[in-house]
């Protein structure tokens, strides 16, 4: 291309890549190490009785140290959800797909995960779901040991009432 045909510079490319030896901290380490064994754990606040998952060392509301670990089932109820319709860079799944905040039975803080094996239009707050796991031989220290949550087919839970109950536990 001759010089006169080259367009003037209007932008430059400046990619960056930074490497980290990331350390997840105490609470998340306990959670992920339990995940490796196929267990979901949380911690209980001594002031409000609320169960946080993943566990924290300190209560999010009262800042009290938490020491009580609680085992949680891999079943719960959808609190709220989002349907992803937009394609974005490095997306893994085909759109549309859905993920949700799921309140595991006994927890007072929802976890986030995918909802699959369910027509998008049928996902709703209050829907009861259960985890679908990878094969135990594939388990690592990762949330991805659970592939997704799917509806159990049981009758819906009154999620509004459940959330009201959780709010009442707050240390005002």
């Amino acid at each position, binding site marked *: 291309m001759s010089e006169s045909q080259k367009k003037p510079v209007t932008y430059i490319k400046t990619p960056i890549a930074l490497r980290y*030896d990331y350390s997840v901290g*105490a609470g998340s380490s306990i959670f992920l190490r339990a995940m490796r064994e196929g267990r979901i754990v949380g911690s209980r606040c001594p002031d409000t009785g609320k169960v946080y998952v993943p566990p924290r060392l*300190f209560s*999010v509301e009262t800042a009290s140290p938490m020491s009580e670990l609680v085992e949680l089932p891999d079943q719960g109820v959808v609190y709220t959800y989002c349907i992803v319709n937009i394609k974005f860079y490095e997306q893994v799944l085909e759109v549309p797909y859905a993920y949700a905040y799921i309140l595991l039975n006994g927890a007072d803080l929802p976890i986030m995960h995918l909802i699959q094996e369910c027509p998008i239009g049928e996902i709703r707050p209050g829907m009861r779901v259960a985890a679908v796991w990878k094969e135990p031989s594939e388990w690592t220290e990762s949330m991805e040991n659970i592939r997704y949550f799917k509806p159990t087919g049981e009758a819906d839970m009154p999620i509004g009432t459940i959330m009201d109950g959780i709010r009442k536990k707050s240390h005002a």
Partner: protein
Amino acid sequence: MREIAIVAFAQTPNRRRELYRNEAEMVAPVVAEVLNSVGLSRRDVDFTCSGSSDYLAGCPFSFVLALDALGAWPPIHESHVEGEAAWALYEAWVKMLCGEEVGVSLVYGFGRQSMGSPRDVMTLMNDPYLEAPLRPDAISLAALQARVLLDAGLCSERDFAEIAARNLRHAQSNPLAQLSGQPDPAELLQAPTIASPLRRHDCPPITDGACAVLLAAGDRARAICERPAWIRGLAHRIDPQALGRRDLTRCPSARLAAVAAGAIGGRVDVAELHAPFTPQDWILQRELDLPKGAVINPSGGIHQGNPMMGTGLVRFGEVAARIIRGEADRGVAHGTQGPCLQQNIVGVLEGE
């Protein structure tokens, strides 16, 4: 104008790498300690402001996760500075000057720089068009400033080593210090240069840590603390970023900030200088016109620990702590960010 004072200070022991806890878990005990030390609870805090940089953790919005340490329910009045926590102190101070409703503020800083490569992370704060693509690291840039000082005959490599030796000597009386000792400057100069003329001792250590101070106004401060460290002046200024446009033997922004804060010409018992590199300590002494009797970096300065994004706030905490304990009457604290002392904050603290 309202009188605002620092009434309490706490920090984590300075360590090379935090192996067990994440940011929230590191901050929570420091916040608890600073409140407990004066018998306050979270409910007594009217405004909270923190300083940190998400680039240290490599995670956008990572500072939000640290809020778990505050017990932020019911919702709290809170703000954040992406950068040095000394500027979070500034924001809290201005907030308190402007409004009677803020009687007590909590300011904290934190960072786990050990997880990444600080030298390479800091590279990205340079001009993204002209400098960052070449990846000039922080030590090399500080070395360019050191060279200009040597060329001008203003100081020597021996002067730099003596600054390091002074900091390490003072750090011996700091139970939280990461580094301390009584090195012979001549021996320090035997080490190979990293980016000439700078050697290991001229550079800041890598430190993970968290720190916090409490601010209180007027009679509230007197009720909380027997001898509050009153902020008599606090100001910050900034120079151009590009090194090629600056006279690197000077630091106009530090000088201007010091003048605006009222730090020049008065009594100075102690001065805590946030000088990441030893030549910068020399420059700051000159710009701040520190009197001969001033004890510089009684805490050990940067060598006692460099919990990046909290280091500047620690300087204010260390001066305040000495005033509160009655070991000093008036002191100057300094914080910096940006390459080669680009941006500087200076404060004057005084006991009543």
